[in-house]
């Protein structure tokens, strides 16, 4: 740039150029100032309007007692908790269903996408049928169908389907035994630390030997020995570290264990099945974008189809897949707000729903909720962009 500039600019035009820089800076400053002014005007307007209507404003309510129950909470929550805590509970529930949904949808979508390109006629057509059905039915209907349709056919808690008397399925959800840490948990924690340390040392040693002599040293065998030995020591000293908390029928429902409520299951399933159909098409497009010559070359080299898919096709397809995949992940997270229809306590339901109705401060609560979704989306996009840069063609930096 500098060379080009000095080459074509005479001293006179340089000063004009300087004027231009100043003028541009001035325009930028004016633009920024008017933008800030507009924001300030909007904010003062909001405050004045709310005061004129005698509606309380501010975020003080976050420290007040909420006073209502929430069906599912990943952290300690009861009726005495604050609205601030309701926000966190709702956010964690949103994250739980979104993250689980993203993982499930990716797995299913990937399998379906590959299946649709299968040489096997039946598999390809089945995958195509799945994709066309699921992506063309509105998500809300799918959620209702999965929720009410499946729930209707499940028995009441006292007639639960039982699996080995430890896992129970009924219309209150799925109840599983929970692991609770026993008295000897600390001893086992020490064992785990020792094993990690041993693994690290052994691996370093193996790498050093490989570097120095080119010999492969198997470090798994001694590591396995160390872990077994220390586990035996711990077991003989303190017994089993964990106890099973087996659910028992008491009163109206099972107590103990961990429970997955039907609202979570239905929402997770609906989000995954729906988004998987879109991901499948993205995967198909990605694979189709890899030149046919690549798979021909791979098979000419004698690579079997699965190997060629794994090491030749997919790494190249990923470059096309990742960017639209990010959009699907964002969609899934945002679609999780449909939870409100079937009483899954996500952030929209408990914070922008119940809390809003109790507190009445629509502006603050909706704004907070919007900002949280924005932050979640930007974070997802950031992580996916990092991954995208990692898989993208490494070109020469100019």
């Amino acid at each position, binding site marked *: 740039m500098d060379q080009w500039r000095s080459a074509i600019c005479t001293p006179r035009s340089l000063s004009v150029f300087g004027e231009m820089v100043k003028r541009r800076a001035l325009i930028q400053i004016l633009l920024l100032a008017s933008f800030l002014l507009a924001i300030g005007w*909007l904010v*003062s*307007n*909001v405050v*004045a*309007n*709310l005061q*004129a*209507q*005698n*509606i*309380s404003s501010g975020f003080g309510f976050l420290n007040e007692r909420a*006073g*209502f*129950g*929430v*069906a599912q909470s990943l952290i300690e929550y009861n*009726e005495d908790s604050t609205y601030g805590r309701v926000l966190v509970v709702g956010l964690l529930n949103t994250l739980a269903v979104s993250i689980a949904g993203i993982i499930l949808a990716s797995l299913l979508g990937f399998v379906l996408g590959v299946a649709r390109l299968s040489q096997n006629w039946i598999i390809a057509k089945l995958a195509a049928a799945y994709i066309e059905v699921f992506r063309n039915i509105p998500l809300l209907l799918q959620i209702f169908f999965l929720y*009410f349709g499946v*729930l*209707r056919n499940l028995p*009441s808690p006292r007639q639960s389907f039982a699996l080995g008397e430890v896992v129970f399925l009924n*219309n*209150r959800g799925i109840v599983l035994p929970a692991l609770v840490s026993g008295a000897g948990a600390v001893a086992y924690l020490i064992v785990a630390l020792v094993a990690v340390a041993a693994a690290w040392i052994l691996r370093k040693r193996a790498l050093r030997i490989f570097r120095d002599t080119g010999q492969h040293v198997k470090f798994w065998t001694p590591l396995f020995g160390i872990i077994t030995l220390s586990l035996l020591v711990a077991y003989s000293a303190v017994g089993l570290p964990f106890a099973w908390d087996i659910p028992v*029928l*008491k*009163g*109206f*429902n099972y*107590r103990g264990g961990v429970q997955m*409520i*039907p*609202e979570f299951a239905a929402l997770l399933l609906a989000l995954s099945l729906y988004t998987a159909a879109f991901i499948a098409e993205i995967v198909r497009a990605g694979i189709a974008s890899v030149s046919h010559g690549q798979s021909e070359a791979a098979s000419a080299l004698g690579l079997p189809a699965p190997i060629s898919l794994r090491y030749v096709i997919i790494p190249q397809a990923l470059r096309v897949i990742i960017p639209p995949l990010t959009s699907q992940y964002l969609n899934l997270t945002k679609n999780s707000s449909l939870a*409100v*229809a*079937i*009483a899954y*306590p996500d952030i929209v*339901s408990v914070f*922008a*729903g*119940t809390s*809003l*109705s*109790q*507190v*009445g401060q*629509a*502006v603050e609560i*909706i*704004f907070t909720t919007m900002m949280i979704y924005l932050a979640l989306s930007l974070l997802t996009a950031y992580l996916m962009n990092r991954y995208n840069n990692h898989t993208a063609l490494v070109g020469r930096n100019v």
Partner: protein
Amino acid sequence: MKHLLWIYAAAVLWTQPVLAADDTLALVKARGYLQCGVSQGLPGFSNPDDKGGWQGIDIDLCKGVAAAIFGNADKVRFTPLSAKDRFTALQSGEIDVLARNTTWSLGRDTSLGVDFTAVNYYDGQGFMIRKDLSDGDGKAIKSVLQLNGATICTNQGTTTELNLADYFKSNNMTYEIVAYEKADEAIAAYNIERCDAYTTDQSALYAQRLKLTQPQAHIVLPEIISKEPLAPVVRQGDNQWSDVVRWTHFAMLNAEELGVSSDNVRAMRNSRNPSIRRLLGVDGRFGQALGLRKDWAYQIIQAVGNYGESFERNLGVNTPLKIKRGVNALWTNGGLQYAPPVR
């Protein structure tokens, strides 16, 4: 209705600092019809009928207000609102009056920028269960106190959730709540046994029971765990408008007390009773003082009848709901419904 929140946010952001909500009556007159916020379908209070019209005591109140203003009870449009969107709709000016079986409480009265007018139904929160529901020991459930550990369905964004929490906590009981955005989904979930019990205002329990597959297989437990005075709501700071709504209800009460009904209101204009003459606008200038037509109360009673008529038509023992007057009887009959005199 989700759009409502966005519209509201946009309205608050962009409007001039003083929202044009100070003179609702003039606004309604200029517009030519009343915009009334009602429920998404609660039999007896506000429910669409098979002809596409609306029925219920809240509907009658709105029609009464329209009749008092325009002399025509049909000049009203209804906006169905979910429990959680209702106040936002009122605050934003989307509706002029919220007649949506809404509980009057101190918190709502002071922090939402709204005013409650007059209680048009005294209610209380109750519980509905299946007749054959039994506790862990196999004993039939006869009381809410036996519901320890039960799963309970309800509507989201109501005082119901708070009362439920308070009641169970004060009785050292636990519960699991499943709160739906719409009453229809809550009752559907209860119907397929997602919950052991369904809780909401007792009048609404009787109404919602009609939507179940086998209404007679369910009972409403005797306990009432809260006071739920249901009142029409207006925006705070517009006293003339809140007077109009409040006195619409009072006119219907006074009419019942004075024996004026939709059948005899025309003849009653010739009555010699000064109270009736004042109520019907034959004597005095009360209508003009309210900013309404002279015969405002006459128009109300002619259109929707007195309070007793409205109650019996929508909720009473001859309707599927079969609700007795109870505390909603006139004070002269031992109830709580009492209106200040027109004088």
